[in-house]
């Protein structure tokens, strides 16, 4: 059984169809990169998968349990209790971090544990310290987000997402807001997560990174998958569109 199974995902804004029958299956421990030109629907797909956006049609399953069903030609989302449980399956790292500016680094990481999971503060602190150490941020625990570099902020947001122990971590262009130097430190962290067999779905424009890291690359265009395969397959693709796009980087 697949950890994540997306089928027939469709989404329109007004008359514009942004997603046309998108599908994605992800196994436990797999790293999947989604690449493709701007406006191809990558971010919309991620936003639908993380419930930030309602999709029009399609199915999302986690370990066979329906988060979204397609009944009577429309999407039916899971009921409250089931929805809450299934939401625990995934985390999301945003392009522009979206840290809470009035919380310290530590509080950003542990407040969801305390507020959402009702975890005792001491226990949350233990987990928080471990995560910050893992991401090389121990000395920043009491700093506020504005005092950090972009790369550090993104690492905090990764720590915050990991704290809830999701089974799948989605990344929405995690390095697009960073300069090349800072990009490196964030990519390093993601590589380490991949080594630890964290399941990840990464929307990215970092071709070299996607090539090195991914088990599978999905090339999207016009709201659908143009090509899908191992990095070798994609980077030696016969498809002219794919060749052109990759050649540009």
């Amino acid at each position: 059984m697949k950890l994540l199974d997306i089928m027939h995902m469709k989404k329109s804004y007004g008359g514009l169809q942004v997603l046309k029958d998108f599908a994605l299956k992800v196994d436990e421990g797999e790293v999947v990169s989604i690449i493709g030109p701007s406006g191809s629907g990558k971010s919309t797909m991620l936003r639908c998968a993380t419930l930030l956006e309602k999709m029009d049609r399609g199915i999302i399953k986690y370990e066979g349990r329906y988060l979204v069903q397609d009944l009577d030609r429309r999407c039916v989302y899971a009921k409250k209790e089931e929805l809450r449980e299934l939401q625990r399956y995934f985390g999301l790292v945003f392009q522009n971090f979206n840290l809470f500016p009035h919380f310290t680094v530590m509080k950003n990481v542990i407040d969801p544990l305390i507020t959402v999971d009702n975890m005792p503060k001491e226990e949350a602190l233990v987990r928080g310290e471990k995560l910050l150490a893992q991401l090389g941020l121990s000395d920043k625990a009491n700093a506020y987000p504005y005092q950090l570099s972009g790369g550090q902020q993104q690492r905090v947001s990764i720590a915050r997402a990991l704290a809830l122990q999701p089974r799948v971590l989605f990344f929405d262009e995690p390095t697009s807001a960073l300069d090349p130097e800072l990009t490196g430190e964030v990519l390093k962290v993601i590589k380490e997560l991949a080594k630890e067999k964290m399941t990840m779905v990464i929307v990215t424009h970092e071709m070299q990174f996607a090539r090195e890291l991914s088990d599978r690359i999905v090339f999207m265009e016009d709201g659908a998958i143009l090509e899908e395969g191992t990095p070798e397959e994609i980077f030696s693709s016969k498809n002219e569109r794919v060749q052109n796009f990759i050649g540009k980087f």
Partner: protein
Amino acid sequence: MGGTVFGQSFSSLEDVMDIETMLFQLGKGMLTTGEIFILTLLFSLPLGLILSFGRMAKNGILRNITKLYISVMRGTPLMLQLLVVYFAPYYLFGIKISSSYRLIAVIIGFVLNYAAYFAEIYRAGIESIPLGQYEAAKVLGYSKANTFFRIILPQVIKRILPPVTNEVITLVKDTSLAFVLAVAEMFTIAKQIAAAEKSMMALVAAGIFYYVFNLLVALIMEKIEKKLSYYR
């Protein structure tokens, strides 16, 4: 004391109020002023937040009713609103108005008026918070209430402090409008003394009282702003 004011002479000591008595009278008025001030803030700040929700509601009817309310409250004189609140029970329900209702009417009028202004300030603050804050909270599993009270509102308060300070300072001065319902707040008393004494003295003193009051308000608000400046 004694002497000539505008060519009128008076010599009898009993006729002239000494400074201490005047300040004492003004001080008593100041208490009423303070009461109007504090009660208005106490009720209009939360009411303004509720109104701002109405103003931003998805429901069009609710949104438009709130919009109309704010528009009327901001578009008509507060003095007129005080009179309407005072006389409404009689004209609408035929209830006899007792004199104890005067202060209550003043406070109701002020609360209704200031809540409208605060609502727009809250709205500006709430709408200035990046959408990403809501999205991050949602993905992390925060409930709607937790998102608002833990994540959004603290940031809103920091952002709206300067315009709120403006309103609070205006409120201190607006309390003088209570004179239309003959509530003996400081300005009403100052005017009475000034008329009886044929001297500007009481009004000047009242001016100083208002100024010191507002200096204090500005000082306190500045302190709060400083306290919230630990993040950006």
